[in-house]
C-alpha cells in the first residue's frame, strides 16, 4: 500500500494505492493520525480510492477509526473514486452512515 497525503485548506486528502488489510491498516492509521496530530487546523478527511484494489474488514475498521478522529473535530469523512466492489462493501458494513461518497475530488473539496 502507498499513501499520498495532500493538505488543501482545512481538508486532508489521502490517496490510497494498493491493498488496505490487516497488514497495511496500521500504517494507514499511523500516517493519518500523525498528520492530524501535527496540524490541528485539519477538519475534513477525503479518501481517494481510485487506486485501491482491495479492502477487507480490517481496512474498514481503520477507515472507521479515522472517522472517529475527524468527528472529534466536527469534520466530515468523504470517499471519492470508489470502485464498484468497494461501494458494496461500504454499504454492507454500514460505513456509509458516517462516510459520504462523492463522484469527484472537486465535489468533495467543496464540503467546507
Amino acid at each position, binding site marked *: 500500500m502507498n499513501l499520498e497525503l495532500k493538505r488543501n485548506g482545512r481538508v486532508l486528502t489521502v490517496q490510497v494505492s494498493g491493498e488496505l488489510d*490487516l*497488514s497495511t491498516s496500521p500504517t494507514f492509521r499511523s500516517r493519518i493520525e500523525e498528520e492530524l496530530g501535527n496540524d490541528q487546523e485539519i477538519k475534513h478527511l477525503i479518501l481517494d480510492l481510485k487506486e485501491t484494489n*482491495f479492502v*477487507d*474488514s480490517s481496512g474498514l*475498521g481503520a477507515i*472507521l477509526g479515522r472517522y*472517529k478522529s475527524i468527528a472529534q473535530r466536527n469534520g466530515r469523512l468523504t470517499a471519492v473514486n470508489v470502485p464498484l*466492489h468497494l461501494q458494496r462493501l461500504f454499504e*454492507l458494513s454500514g460505513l456509509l452512515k458516517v462516510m459520504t461518497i462523492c463522484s469527484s475530488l472537486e465535489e468533495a473539496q467543496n464540503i467546507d
Partner: protein
Amino acid sequence: MKENYLNISFPSLPDNVSLSRVIVASFAAQLDFTLNELEEIRVATSEAVSNCVIHAYPDHPGEVRLELKISDDTLMIKVIDEGCGIADLDLAKTPAYSSDPERMGLGLVFMESFMDEMTIESQPNQGTKVLMVKKPERSKNNSHDCQ
C-alpha cells in the same frame, strides 16, 4: 468436471494474509467465477486468515493450514488453526462485535454473506476449523438448464 486440491501451511503473520488471498483467488479461477465472485472469495479468505492472526494466536505466530479443493464445480476452502479457539460462537457471529475500536467485527458476517456456505468448528484451546463453500453462479444456472 474439474477435480483439484492444494494444501499449504504458513505462519500466522499479517503479511501472509495477502498471500493467502492471491493463492485462493488463483486456485478459484479454475472455475467459472465472475470477477465479482472472485472478489467475494478474496474478502472471505482475508477475513478467515486475519482471524487466525488476530484471534487464534494473539501472542505469537502459530501455524495456519489452508486446504483448497475443487470438486463437482464447487470450491471448498478450509482454514484451520490450532490456536485458542472461540468460546462463544454465537457472540462471535454478532455483527459489530469487537473489543477493538479499530475493528468493525464484520469478519464472520462477510464470510457468511460472500460464500454459499460457511461453518465453524471450534473449542476453547483446541483451535478453529472454518469451512467455506462457493459455486459459480453461472455453473448453478447451467445445472438448472439441464434439469
